[in-house]
């Protein structure tokens, strides 16, 4: 049985910077199995976030193929992209990007509402998700009323609420202090282990990368074993 959740074959991406063309990704190959976690490390500007953006359908690869959760990401139309982001993947960014006009619970339940799940059911599941990340008591608070760690935990709950097959995490603890960082890192790995979700993690942190099943290094546009 094929358990491959993510398959990247020969993906490349370049950007125009004035008269120059910067080749960020040359030929990236990557495979991720269900429930597996891979940490991608690399220097700043090496293209880690770009790779994540290509997989998340936020940007288009110039060449190569990206197949994620059964979707040919590079060929998706707007409507299919919405379905892909809604059902198949979850994002965790360095910054929480919670909607400031919505409470923690409302932020978490939004992706469910977008799938047409009734509000009552969505709210109950959101409360449960917040409990699982340890901030149930803060569910009625707005992001401005939460600490950095709490916001990131709410963002994690939001990413997991639709039970995605793949979590794309871009420096998820990069903006947190030492104490919260460790807490959130442990939470990420425990939650994905419980839910059987695959994780593609981009980080500078060797400590965090060590917690993943596998670590890869992105250098000169190529993804290599360290």
């Amino acid at each position, binding site marked *: 049985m094929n358990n491959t959740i993510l398959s990247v074959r020969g993906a490349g991406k370049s950007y125009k910077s004035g008269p120059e063309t910067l080749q960020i990704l040359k030929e990236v190959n990557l495979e991720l199995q269900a429930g597996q976690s891979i940490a991608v490390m690399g220097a700043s500007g090496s293209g880690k976030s770009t790779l994540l953006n290509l997989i998340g359908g*936020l940007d288009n690869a110039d060449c190569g193929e990206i197949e994620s959760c059964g979707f040919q990401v590079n060929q998706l139309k707007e409507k299919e992209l*919405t379905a892909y982001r809604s059902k198949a993947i979850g994002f965790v960014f360095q910054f929480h990007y919670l*909607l400031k006009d919505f409470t923690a619970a409302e932020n978490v339940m939004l992706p469910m509402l*977008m799938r047409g799940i009734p509000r009552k059911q969505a709210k109950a599941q959101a409360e449960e998700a917040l409990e699982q990340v340890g901030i149930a008591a803060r569910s009625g608070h707005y992001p401005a009323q939460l600490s950095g760690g709490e916001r990131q935990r709410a963002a994690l709950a939001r990413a997991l609420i639709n039970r995605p097959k793949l979590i794309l995490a871009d420096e998820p603890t990069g903006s947190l202090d030492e104490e919260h960082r460790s807490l959130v890192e442990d939470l990420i790995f425990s939650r994905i282990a419980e839910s059987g979700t695959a994780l593609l993690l981009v980080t500078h942190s060797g400590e965090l990368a060590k917690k993943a099943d596998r670590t890869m290094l992105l250098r000169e546009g190529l993804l290599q074993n360290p």
Partner: protein
Amino acid sequence: MSGSGFIAWRLFLRGHRERRQSKPLFGAALGIALSLIPLIVVDHFADAMIEGIIARYRETSSYHFQIRTWEEPLQEEWQTLANKIAAQPGVATAWVERSGYALARARGPRDGLTLRALPENAPLRDTEFGRYIEFDEGSWNLADKSILLGREAARRLEASVGDKIFILTAATTAGNITPKVNPMTVKGIFTTGYQDLDRTWAFISLDEGWNMLAETSSTTFVGGKFTSLAQSSAIWTQIKNTLAPRWKAYSWRELNRYLLSNLESTRSILLVIMGLIIIIAVLNVLTSMVMLTLEHRREIGTLKCTGTSPGTISLAFTAAGTLAALIGILFGLAAGLLMSYHINSIIASIEYTLTLINGIFTDAPPPVLLSEGYYLQEVPVKMRWLVTSVIGIITLILSIGAAWLPASRAAGLKPLEVLRKH
């Protein structure tokens, strides 16, 4: 509540939760409300004024219809015609009127008058006519060389009830026009509610009119009223068909066409101004929505990342703008209707305040906002529910359009571009 409805509701409520946040939608709602209030008040005011003016002219001056001729029929022929018309079903009353110009002198300087010779029992025969003629002094009495003067005419002539007044008219004797002095007694001073009518009008009896006003320098006609103006079309056609060719029939619309045309022009100008007010209010929605979407670019990017479709985002922002517009419209219409209903009390309060301030700081006479000099002493308010509803619906439709434009642009934002900038 759907996802887009939920987002819309939160977008609208934003800013109410955090004091530091800007409140573009609250501003849009307020802008629409503040634009609609004067719009509704002006619409009611203008309509009431126009309706009031038309009704007053029709009931006191032009009648519902007039029968005229270029020939010079005898007094008996006029009376026969009037009786024949009055006997028609659907006709409330019809009488002969003769009117002409005269020069008058009482205690003060000489002044010109429009003499209107009417049956002595005119207000009894036509209660609508009687309703619009209010007496300051004396009463309706045209017997024994009596004359009734308009308020302003009496003031200028310095005449009071009981005074002798000399009316100079033109008499035709053997083809020559000669002056004729007619001594009369003032039996009443009246007002029609309009200064320009009160300035010139004077009523005398029809018999005196035949004596004083020469055929060549006066106008004679049969004026009539329908029992119901709204259902007069068939009766009017019948009256015209039964008239001999020498008689010409004119409806009140034909007789007042210049007045109606002027009032219609005024109404059109008001409508254009009202349209501009609505457009300004809708532009307010547009700018507020642009601000809202600009402030929410990061949220839009996040929503897209979490699987929200562009359609849902567009719908959510459009709904938020529409909600703001709807609240503004409901508040504006309600406040506008309330102010229209109480416009006379509001004007009286303003007048009272101005008088108070004027009394404290100056010796000038107190200001009068509504007087007969300005046509109306009181605004006759009639609630215009249909027009008010139409204004509300048009504003709502335009607001939805204004909200949709920036919302659809916002929905097209690329999440990566937005998140990179934030």
